[in-house]
């Protein structure tokens, strides 16, 4: 049974329709990603799920609850990590954890959370003295402190360095293993690919695709790119004549050949026939990045 159900969600701000008929269902124990370019309506969508905003249309159920009507009960079951939400400057980490755990009926053990989040040696540090990554980890701890069944994490790893980002991913995977369903808003492809069981790609307030990361990639076919620096000039037509090749582009002194099937074999065979060697040869598979651009017409990280 789906633990989060969203049907035909609509949210307008004045004349602007930020969310225009978004629908998806998240199964229990899943890590479900919401992916999209900036301003696509990702945050508005999850804020409706969290009950922070009143939708203008559609229905939402979280653990069978209506976020606007059963707000009190929802708060016990859903933990949220918001974008750009701070704590009082001089509040210490321990005080924040004790305070927030006192808000819940059955809080999680915050000592265990700080251990996993590597904040144990920062318990007596004031919020203003934490690094960006530590603030973010504390924010995750506060989202999980009520021992929620559903956690909504919005732009979780934005502003984290690569090491902290990987730690956060491990943590999220660990949280899921405890049976928590996770709704993850992101615009990092690597994050989506690494963590999410399924993804909804949102663009201009609509769901343009809903699939597993591998499923999304396969939608745009087995496209590949071969990149190399030819030892002598080569007529592009000799390459485009190949059935495997879809396009050839010159990038400085390099050639970028895009195509399908046994692209590399076909290209190297032609090069050998013309006695041309390919220096600095690279083969790139299509990635979620390519799928994203194909689906939304925009790069994910502008």
């Amino acid at each position, binding site marked *: 049974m789906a633990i989060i159900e969203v049907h035909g969600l609509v949210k307008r701000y004045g004349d602007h329709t930020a969310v225009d008929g978004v629908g998806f269902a998240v199964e229990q124990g899943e890590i479900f990603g919401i992916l999209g370019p900036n301003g696509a309506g990702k945050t508005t969508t999850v804020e409706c799920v969290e009950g922070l905003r009143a939708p203008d249309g559609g229905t939402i159920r979280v653990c069978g609850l209506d976020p606007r009507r059963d707000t009190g009960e929802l708060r016990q079951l*859903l933990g949220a990590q918001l974008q750009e939400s701070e704590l*009082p400057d001089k509040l210490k980490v321990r005080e924040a954890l004790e305070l927030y755990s006192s808000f819940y009926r059955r809080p999680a053990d915050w000592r265990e959370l700080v251990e996993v989040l590597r904040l144990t040696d920062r318990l007596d540090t004031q919020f203003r003295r934490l690094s960006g990554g530590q603030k973010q980890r504390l924010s995750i701890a506060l989202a999980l402190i009520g021992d929620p069944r559903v956690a909504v994490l919005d732009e979780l790893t934005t502003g984290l360095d690569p090491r902290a980002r990987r730690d956060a991913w491990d943590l999220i995977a660990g949280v899921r293993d405890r049976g928590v369903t996770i709704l993850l808003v992101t615009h990092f492809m690597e994050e989506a690919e690494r963590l999410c069981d399924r993804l909804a790609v949102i663009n201009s307030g609509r769901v343009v695709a809903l699939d597993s990361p591998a499923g999304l990639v396969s939608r745009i076919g087995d496209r590949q790119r071969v990149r190399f620096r030819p030892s002598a000039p080569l007529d592009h037509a000799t390459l485009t004549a190949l059935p495997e090749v879809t396009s050839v582009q010159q990038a400085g002194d390099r050639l970028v050949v895009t195509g399908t099937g046994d692209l590399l074999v076909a290209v190297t065979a032609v090069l050998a026939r013309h006695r041309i060697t390919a220096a600095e040869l690279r083969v790139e598979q299509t990635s979620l990045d390519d799928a994203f651009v194909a689906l939304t017409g925009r790069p994910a990280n502008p």
Partner: protein
Amino acid sequence: MPALYRLTATETRLFFREPVLVFFTLAFPPLLLVVFGAIPAMREPSDDAVGLRAIDLYVPITVALGLAMFALNCLPQLFATYREKGVLRRMRTTPVEPRTMLGAQLLMALVLSAATALVVLAIGRLAFDVSLPRHLPAYLAGYLPTALSVFTIGLLVASLASTGKSAGAIGTLVFFPLVFFAGLWLPRAGMPDVLRAISDVTPLGAGVQSLQDATAGHWPQPLHLAVVLGWAVLAGVPAARYFRWE
């Protein structure tokens, strides 16, 4: 209600980590009374019929000053900063509603300003022989509505200001005329009639007079109670209208 209690305790702890704020809200009013009391002229009986000394008049004025410090120099900035930084927004995602935070800050301000009032009264009595309020229920009937009205004005400032900094600036701007008409520079007894008439319809002018009356053993005058409560309504309606959690 444990959440309110815990939040009040946490907010109070945070308050005491701001030395400048602690000095101006808690220590400054009693200190000012001590300075005034050290001036011999302040302890001379006046020529008028009542025979009150200036220091007698300054005890209720410094009590009102304590309230104004919390209401206008502490609360609006604190609350607007929490809103600006998303502290209240985060709270909305927990079972405790952000209005509990507002309640905690008001409760803290009320308790601490009452503590300042007690210290002021004690210093007045012990150091300068100022009589304690003779009519305690009347004193509370003057003090609590005055607290209500200045705190509501503080909330109005917090509602209208866009940032913590601007809330602090607007609060200070409102603070000076209010404490002027409370008689901080010139006690009401020494004000020209026009000034005193204006002072009668300001929240702290009316409030100080109510405290003065209660000290002498009388209930606050209906005019002054009406003025104080009127300000609470006058500030409360737009404060509720423009109030934002985020």
